């Protein structure tokens, strides 16, 4: 059967171009073996990073006052997650917009979360089964007005500034905070036993792979950030490019990270949205380089192509040079 004719064919495109034998499959096979040897060597010599994940249990044992202050903040609505906004709830604390452009608000609440209930009151309700004192404290807390709750929470937050942690023994001098002392003391006990890690993962289903609640709570505290700072992972340390230990991170995100270091981005309240939009614009430009005059001409202005095809140009010049022909 005769092969159908092409509208564009390589034969006419390459007419007059010198060719050389080429074995594509062999080249890929050799490259794979070489890279395999390199990668096996790196894996054997350098291993890979794996710092264990933090737990609520570890947090409450190592930094109990930070833990209590965070939990109190969840009740007060002063933590990052409790005031965040979409997609967790209708708050506005972390809503980023650019003029009328507000995709975070437009997307709305899809992962509903009430931090006070999810992180403190819900777990305490479970823990109060068989604990009459805690049950009474929770009932007392639930029965009062929101204003009274705010007063108790504020007093307890003030009390925490005078708290002492002596070899893991936490003492909070409570004064005018109602049942808060008993409630938060119980929460700390549950957390230190590891129970809160489990309670933050409970749901109406048996299987669970969603860590949103637990991670948001952990992220609200100061402990996680302190550990990240020790590993040089925070933003002003170019954290995204680093890994725990002496390993490379996501170095390909260097440009994404760069904007966070530069004004006006680094002082903007909507920095994340600005950076994402900037990177979206730059990615679109990269995609459309072939069609953008100026951008598509850069390779001609910066003649790296002369290095790329150096041998080819040398060959071309030799071929064009006058040759003394024998008579």
């Amino acid at each position, binding site marked *: 059967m005769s092969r159908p004719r092409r509208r564009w064919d390589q034969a006419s495109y390459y007419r007059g171009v010198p060719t050389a034998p080429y074995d594509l499959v062999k080249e890929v096979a050799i490259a794979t073996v070489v890279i395999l040897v390199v990668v096996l060597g790196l894996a054997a010599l350098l291993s890979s990073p794996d710092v264990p994940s933090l737990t609520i249990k570890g947090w409450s044992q190592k930094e109990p006052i930070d833990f209590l202050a965070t939990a109190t903040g969840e009740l007060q609505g002063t933590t990052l997650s409790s005031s965040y906004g979409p997609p967790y709830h209708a708050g506005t604390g972390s809503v980023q917009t650019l003029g009328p452009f507000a995709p975070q608000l437009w997307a709305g609440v899809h992962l509903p979360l009430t931090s006070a209930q999810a992180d403190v009151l819900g777990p305490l309700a479970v823990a109060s089964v068989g604990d009459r004192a805690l049950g009474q404290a929770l009932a007392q807390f639930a029965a009062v007005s929101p204003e009274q709750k705010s007063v108790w929470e504020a007093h307890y937050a003030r009390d925490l500034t005078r708290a002492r942690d002596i070899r893991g023994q936490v003492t909070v001098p409570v004064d005018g905070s109602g049942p808060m002392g008993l409630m938060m003391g119980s929460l700390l006990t549950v957390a230190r036993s590891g129970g809160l890690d489990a309670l933050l993962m409970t749901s109406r289903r048996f299987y669970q792979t969603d860590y949103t609640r637990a991670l948001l709570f952990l992220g609200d505290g100061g402990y996680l950030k302190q550990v990240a700072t020790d590993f040089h992972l925070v933003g002003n340390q170019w954290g995204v490019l680093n890994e725990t230990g002496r390993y490379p991170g996501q170095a390909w995100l260097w440009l994404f990270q760069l904007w966070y270091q530069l004004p006006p981005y680094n002082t903007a309240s909507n920095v994340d949205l600005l950076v994402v939009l900037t990177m979206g614009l730059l990615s679109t430009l990269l995609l459309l380089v072939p069609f953008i005059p100026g951008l598509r001409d850069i390779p001609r202005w910066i003649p790296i192509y002369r290095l790329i095809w150096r041998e*080819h140009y040398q060959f071309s010049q030799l071929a064009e040079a006058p040759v003394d022909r024998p008579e």
Partner: protein
Amino acid sequence: MTTSAESGPTPDREPANHSQPNPSRSWTLRLRNYVLRELPPEHLLPESEPAYLGSWVYVFGVVTIAALILVIGSGVVLAFFGPQWWQVSPQGHFVNSVHFWSVQMFFIFMVLHLWGQFFAASWRDGRAATWMIGVVVFLVSVVTAFTGYLSQQNFDSQWIALNAKDAVNSTGAGAFFDVLNFGQMYGLHILLFPLLLTMLVVLHIVWVRRRGVVKPIELRHPS
């Protein structure tokens, strides 16, 4: 033997000719013709190429594919044994290390390939689609690697997830792409994104083979 022509058959008694399908009606034949027309076997697997392909810059693309083969191979082993295996088994940790360094190699050589092709202006002579598919491959690779970092189940995953959520949420994408949801990120990382990435890489390679590698800039043919 009496032929049908000799016996003068009526049209409804004429046997169907199965060996000669009508090219304009057969979808299969049209697809085969299209594939053969656009990508004849000698272009897909050539035994010779223009001599200027001897440049070192063309090695980067091949090495990127080699690294991707190792990324997928080590990833298949990790996926088979489950997300916790590499943290509780020395063998699993080694396979994870192979996966980790393969990813690093993949990105190093992909970026070198990208810049090499940029400075070669490889989109010339009708190759814009090849360039664009390559850029999409890079962007999908970044997202695929990102979901991999979120699937490690270690401190790095926790920190990256908590920081990344603000950027994702600010665009509204957090409503359906929850970086704190391990199950969602793991599923995307081991199935959908690798599948998409592999398809795009295959498409990129097919497009390169289809048109051939672009000629050098300001090429002057030896006459």
